[in-house]
Structure formats: structure tokens, C-alpha cells
């Protein structure tokens, strides 16, 4: 019970006619890095704004740390650090002063400012005005601000958006280290590769609906490449392989397998060739995030 950090039930947000988030049931447990994945416009930011009490849900319940957000907004926000979309920065203030604003607001100890500055490696730039900061530095300042109060739950909305590869790498490593201190993290992204490299749990949102929510391993299964085999007679090939105990998915023209290791590929090939069929194509097909979305959405449609 105590380990359920985020629970939403039937969370829905409607803007006039358009439904941005529909019937979302989010589950995040203590110590997880929850990757919230979805293409642009899927409803990630809208969901996060609702979790932070910035906008009111049209329907549904939100429980954080086992308490209802509606009744306990302030005591819940006490335990959260967040970065929503583009980072907040007061351009007329230095990096340190930006953190000082938040430190004053939340009555935190002064040395905490130095600590977070060094965590995000902004100590040297701390005395420069933030309007002169690069996008990466602003993003790091945003993360520093979110970490300032030592939150139990950190919510980061596309924290690597617009960063260069080394900046992305840096933030990824930073996030991966956070659960060691007992923190839970919700991090959103529109890139599967990124979530793949840091998350332990994944929720996939598409057109406002959650179409997948499970461990990262489960998603990786779906992400595995497939073997596509072109053969002269698909029906006969299927029958032959069935006889050997190898099941296969097949369309009109091709056979599909969910294994691609070399030994398996050559085994299939030799079975088919020895049976007198001609094999004209053996291809490993990588599935993109779009393909997985398509697969997930069509699966949902067929339920």
C-alpha cells in the first residue's frame, strides 16, 4: 500500500470537444523509474499537469503517496519535484539566484543550493545570468530546481528535449542514479530508445489512452526484430514447419518469425530448401516505435 507512489483511476481531461487524456490508469511504485512514452500530442504533458494539480481533471481520481490529490494538494506537493515542458528560468537572475528564489519559497537550507548546483554541474556557471545560458544549461537548472527539496517523487517532462547527445547522456546517467536514494521518477519522452535506456517500467500513451503499461522487459519483447522469409509456397511451408514443431505467423506472401539468431535462420532455411521449396528472401526486420504503436493500437482495437 505504502509503496504505491502514483495511482490514477480513469483519469480524463477534455478540452471542449477534444479529449486529451482518456481513462488513464497510471501505476508507479516506490523506487521505479517510470518511462512515460508517447508521440507528440499524445497527452503526456496534460497528464503530468493533472498530477501536479496545475489543471483539474474532467473525470477520474489521482492518488499520490496513497492520498487523494484533491484533498491533500499542498502536503503532496511538498514531496514532489517537477520539471514540466520547457524549464522555468528568470532571465534577469543568475543560476544561483534562480535556485535561491525556490530555496526561499520552500524554506530549505542554504547549502542545498550548492549541492544541487554540483549535481547538475552548474557550479562554475552559477554566477552568470540565466538568459545567457544554453538550452542544456537551462534544462540542467530546471532539474536542479526539481531536486532542491530532496523530493520522494521526481516528475520530469521530456527532460532531454533539445539537448545534444552528450547532454542527453549526462541527464540519463543522472536520472538512473536517483532511485538509489529512495526516489521514484516519472520521466516522459517521445523517444523509445531514450526510455529504453533508463526506465524500469513503461507506460505507453497514444491519443490520450494508455495502450501499454508493464516492465521494460515486456516492451523490449515487442521491440525485438522479426525474421521475414519469402518462400514460393507459403501454405506448404507453414505445414512443413508445423510438422517440425516450429510455429509461424504468416501473411499472404511472407512467413514471420520472432527469432532472428543466425542458427535459427539457417535452420529454417535448410528445412525449407530441403523440402523442395525455393527461398528467395531472408530478412531481419527491425520494428520502429511507430510499428509498436501500430501493433499496440490495433491490438487494442481488436479487444
Amino acid at each position: 500500500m505504502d509503496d504505491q507512489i502514483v495511482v490514477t483511476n480513469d483519469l480524463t481531461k477534455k478540452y471542449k470537444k477534444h479529449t486529451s487524456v482518456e481513462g488513464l490508469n497510471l501505476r508507479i511504485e516506490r523506487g521505479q523509474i517510470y518511462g512515460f512514452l508517447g508521440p507528440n500530442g499524445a497527452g503526456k504533458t496534460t497528464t503530468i499537469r493533472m498530477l501536479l494539480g496545475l489543471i483539474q481533471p474532467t473525470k477520474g481520481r489521482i492518488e499520490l503517496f496513497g492520498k487523494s490529490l484533491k484533498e491533500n494538494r499542498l502536503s503532496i506537493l511538498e514531496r514532489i519535484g517537477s520539471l514540466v515542458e520547457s524549464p522555468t528560468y528568470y532571465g534577469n537572475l543568475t543560476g544561483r539566484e534562480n535556485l535561491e528564489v525556490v530555496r526561499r519559497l520552500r524554506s530549505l537550507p542554504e547549502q542545498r543550493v550548492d549541492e544541487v548546483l554540483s549535481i547538475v554541474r552548474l557550479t562554475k556557471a552559477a554566477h552568470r545570468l540565466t538568459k545567457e545560458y544554453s538550452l542544456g544549461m537551462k534544462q540542467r537548472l530546471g532539474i536542479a530546481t526539481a531536486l532542491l527539496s530532496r523530493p520522494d517523487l521526481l516528475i520530469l517532462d521530456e527532460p532531454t528535449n533539445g539537448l545534444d547527445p552528450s547532454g542527453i547522456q549526462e541527464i540519463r546517467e543522472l536520472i538512473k542514479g536517483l532511485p538509489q536514494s529512495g526516489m521514484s521518477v516519472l520521466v516522459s519522452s517521445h523517444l523509445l530508445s531514450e526510455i529504453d535506456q533508463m526506465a524500469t517500467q513503461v507506460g505507453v500513451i497514444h491519443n490520450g489512452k494508455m495502450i501499454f503499461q508493464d516492465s521494460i522487459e515486456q516492451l523490449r519483447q515487442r521491440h525485438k526484430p522479426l525474421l521475414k522469409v519469402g518462400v514460393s509456397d507459403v501454405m506448404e511451408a507453414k505445414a512443413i514447419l508445423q510438422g517440425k514443431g516450429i510455429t509461424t505467423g504468416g501473411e499472404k506472401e511472407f512467413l514471420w518469425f520472432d527469432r532472428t539468431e543466425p542458427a535459427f535462420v539457417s535452420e529454417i532455411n535448410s528445412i525449407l530448401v530441403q523440402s523442395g521449396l525455393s527461398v528467395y528472401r531472408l530478412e531481419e526486420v527491425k520494428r520502429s516505435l511507430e510499428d509498436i504503436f501500430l501493433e499496440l493500437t490495433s491490438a487494442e482495437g481488436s479487444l
Partner: protein
Amino acid sequence: MKEILRADQLKLKRSSILIIVLLIPILILTYELVNFTYRAELVDKQAELFHAGSMWMYLLYDNSLLFGLGFPLAATLAASIIANIEHQADGWKQLLAFPVSRSKVYLSKFIWLTMSLLISLTIFLIGMILLGKALEFEESVPLGLLAGDSYGMLIATLPFTAFQLWLSMTIKNQAFPILIGAICTIMGLFLAAVQMTRWFPLAYPIQSSTVILQYEGIGYNTDLPVYLAINLMLGIALLCMGVIHFVKRDNQ
């Protein structure tokens, strides 16, 4: 509340709020300095014609139009600057995701706005006294009249200020609130000129000087206490409405 006030104070650092605070005192006092030196004869003649009780009273009468027009504009700009600090920083989402009550967030902005205007008025008051001393006005300083004229303006514009703050906080593009503020200020001038409409609260800033020109000449403004009482209550009501709206609204 103390925490958020101190946090908001830091946000004003290196902002242009200081310029707005100094704007009205410097503009009006410079105008009066020029007026009382280069056009001294004309000023003396007019003071006599209007039966001004003292040069201090003439000074108050002379600057009342500029002050009544200029101060609401300064309040418009100050409200815009204070709200725009958050708009520009994209700061609302961060501020409101902290464990602070939304009404305190709103009130803190209002308090800093009022504080800026109060400082501006104090500078204006001190400036007027120094100006009178420098020009060697014969009569002793009528502190009550001068202070009433300066600080009365804060209350006379309170509903306007509360409304402008709400507009600037609600609308991101500051061109719109500033335009509305300018239009309302000019409207106040026209409303004040007509006997029927001069009781409309928007017309009070123009008429809120402690001295006015009557048939008998420059005398005390006996309507002022009524203006101030009405606008104090209206101002508080508008402030409360602003808070209520801000607490309820969705925040992008």
C-alpha cells in the same frame, strides 16, 4: 506568506520595476521645476487669480491632472512588469506546482505591486517638499495636504490597480493589458469632465487631489473622503474576485 514574499522580492532584481517607480516622480517634478522657474511670473499671476491659499496648494492643483493621468499609467506598467516576470520565465507552472497556496501567490504579487507604488508615491511626496523648499515657498509645509494628495492616489486607483493586475496575470501578451490600462485612464479623464459621470469610480484618480479649483478659487476637495471610501471597498472587492478566479483557473 513571508517565504513567498521574499522569493518574489528576489525576482524583481534587475527588472525594470525601478524605472516605473521613478517615472512619475521624476516626470512631474521636472515639469513643475521648469514651470515654477521659467514661467514663474505666470505661475504667480495664476496663483493670485485662483486665490490659492499658498504656493503649496497651487503646486498641488497644478500637478493634479498630470498626476491623475500619469499614476494609473504607472500602475498599469508596474502590474504588467510584475506579472510578466512569471510569464517570461514560464514560471506559473513551476510556482504553482510548489506547496504554496494559490491565493498567497496572487496576494504576494499584489503586495509587491502596492509596495512599488507606495515607494513611488513616497518619492513623489519627498520630491514635492524638496521642490517647495528649493523654490523657497513662504508658507510652512502642509504635510497633511501633501501626504493626502500622494497616498490618497493609491486608494483612488486601487480598483484600477487590482483590475490591471488581474488582467496582466491572466493574459500572457502584455500589449493587451497595457492598452486596456491606457484606454481606461483616458476614459477616466472624460468621465470626470461630465457632472453626471464624474461619480463613476474610474473618474476618481483624476479628481483625487486634496485641492481643487472651485468657483471661489482653489480650495479643499470635500468629495475626496467619499471617493476614497468607495474605491477602497471596490478595490478590495476586485482583489478578492481576482484571487478567486486565479485559484480556480487551469494553469497552462
